[in-house]
């Protein structure tokens, strides 16, 4: 989960650059990988978890948590700890139906990032965000500032500004983050539960192997050249979970710039169209079918598409749902690899 925070377009590039450069100051203590602080069972306060090299110590289980970015909000919802939330902000698209009621019960501070004052007005005792941009001075303030004010500040490891703090995308890494958050919120057992449940779901998907023998293009967006799911991120995890082959598995990173030449040459069996509010899957499909060259692809001619929501393709608690949705659509296409 490297791409999104850097590209977060709602902030001036200069500010982003400033964050990236000042983050050097924060890197003094690289600390243990987040994973090591995870498997706590005793929730005796105070507890300490590590977030991007910062020790986050929580004296009492926080009761007024503010989550920034959809991923963070969904982790808390998935843990069933919505009653500890004081507010949420910044959805990329929609919260899935199963968490809708819980989500609606919590005040939404703002559509995108709240201002510093809006955040303070919610009187948070813990701030949890997916992207480093949330801890800019204009938004929540730095993790140190918040800590100094007695507010816990946890940044998803996938959003750490320093590359060395960011884990590779894996279901384990997702569950480690979930465990950290659950521990900080005083309910480590909720993380255990989620982990067991998702692990089981994943095992079922793997044994069903709906994508066995299928070459799949994971098309995230971009028409001049395709932005594709590459070998080391959420898309690859989803494709692995259903047993499909990613035609761009050789490219490094979570997402990468592919080329239509390679797409033509690979002629994938199925194309995954990522559905995002800013770039709907329907637009992508229309483009493929109107392009004089791409309409010759087998998958386009035979209309073999699968749609996965963008928010279920990033390393987070919905990744398993993304895999399940893909598996269901592949079954429906009825292909034999």
């Amino acid at each position, binding site marked *: 989960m490297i791409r999104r925070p850097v590209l977060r377009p*709602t902030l001036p590039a200069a500010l982003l650059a400033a964050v990236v450069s000042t983050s050097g100051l924060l890197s003094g203590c690289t600390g243990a990988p987040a994973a090591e602080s995870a498997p706590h069972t005793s929730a005796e306060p105070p507890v300490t978890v590590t977030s991007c090299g910062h020790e986050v110590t929580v004296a009492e289980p926080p009761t007024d948590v503010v989550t920034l970015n959809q991923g963070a909000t969904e982790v808390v919802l998935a843990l069933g700890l919505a009653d500890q939330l004081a507010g949420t902000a910044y959805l990329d698209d929609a919260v899935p139906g199963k968490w809708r009621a819980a989500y609606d019960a919590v005040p939404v501070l703002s559509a995108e990032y709240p201002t510093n004052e809006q955040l303070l007005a919610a009187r948070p005792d813990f701030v949890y965000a997916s992207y480093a941009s949330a801890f800019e001075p204009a938004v929540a303030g730095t993790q140190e500032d918040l800590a100094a004010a007695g507010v816990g500040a946890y940044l998803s490891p996938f959003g750490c500004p320093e590359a060395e703090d960011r884990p590779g995308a894996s279901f384990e890494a997702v569950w480690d983050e979930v465990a950290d958050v659950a521990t900080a919120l005083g309910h480590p057992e909720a993380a255990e539960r989620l982990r067991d449940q998702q692990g089981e779901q994943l095992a079922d998907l793997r044994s069903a192997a709906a994508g066995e023998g299928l070459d799949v293009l994971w098309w995230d967006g971009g028409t001049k050249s395709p932005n594709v799911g590459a070998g080391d991120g959420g898309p690859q995890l989803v494709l692995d979970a259903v047993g499909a082959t990613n035609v761009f598995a050789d490219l490094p990173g979570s997402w990468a710039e592919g080329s239509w030449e390679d797409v033509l040459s690979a002629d994938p069996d199925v194309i995954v169209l990522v559905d995002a509010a800013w770039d*709907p899957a329907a637009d992508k499909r*229309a483009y493929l079918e109107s392009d004089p060259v791409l309409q010759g692809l087998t998958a386009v001619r035979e209309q073999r598409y699968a749609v996965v929501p963008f928010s279920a393709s990033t390393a987070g608690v919905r990744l398993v749902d993304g895999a399940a949705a893909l598996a269901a659509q592949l079954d429906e296409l009825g292909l034999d690899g």
Partner: protein
Amino acid sequence: MSPWGARGRTGRGLLALGALAVLLGSCAVALGVGSVDVPVARVLAVVARRAGAGDLDVTLLEDQLVWQLRLPRVLGAVAVGAVLAACGAVLQSLTRNDLADPFLLGVSSGAGVGAVSVIVLGVGVGGLAAGAVLPAAAFAGALAALAAVLLVASAGGGALRPHRTVLAGVAVAHLCGAYTSVVVIMHGQGDAARRVLAWTLGSLAGLRWGSALVLLAAAVVALVWFLAYAERLDAFAFGETSARSLGVPVTATRWVLMVGTALVTATTVAYAGAIGFVGLVVPHLVRPLVGSRHRVLLPASAVAGAVLLVWADTAARSLVEGQEVPIGALTALIGVPVLVWLMARRVAA
């Protein structure tokens, strides 16, 4: 002996032949470069088959790669390079300003307004956005900016004086830039900022036959048009008064050529974004070789611009594996040292 003696004419003929050979060779090399390996022999086979030389065992994939993806892109590079370089030569002489480039009249920033409106605000129809709406919006934005610049520059007289026109262009460009930044920052979602940035830097990726043919047509029209004015452009060498005393209708010529260059530049911007430095630098590179007479300078600049852009585009898609380097960055990489060298030479002289 006539001023253009037999030797000069032969020399220029050879130069023209050489330049065309370099251009064709560059195109041939560019056709062989891509992320999928197609041997030169197969590239030739694809082209030969399309030219009606029989089946030659060309596979569908080879035809798709070479004929449908690479050739339109290469031809697009030829057309865009030729247009930008020729426009640069025209405007440098028309404004007597060595730093004049085809984006002088605000067309790139205006096109940016159109493009951002589509990319970020989703003005237009979903799905078609990337295909037809984006170039159309960019072109419309360019025209609007051009109209604004001409209105400001010609207010109270209509003589379109160069320094006033340049100022108007700068002013409108800043206004457009402000709009673009505000829209991206206030409304940008997902990877909109990256898409806008990529568009701004220009790219020939994704050109298909339809767009390539439009660009080629624009290039041909532009060259024929500008060449008809070659002699009158020469007359601008010593300034406006001198041109008028030679019988050149200065104001009319300025209008025709400024609007003409802006229109064809806007066409290239609509399909390929604003690719900088080609129009600025190529005429300066070509003049020492062929002189300053526009009858020779314009076609020479066009060919040199085409060759430069074909190579820059080939580098753009092959320098970094699996990544497109923005072509505007590459032309700047070549253009900036040349510009610095020009400035140094000017200071020394």
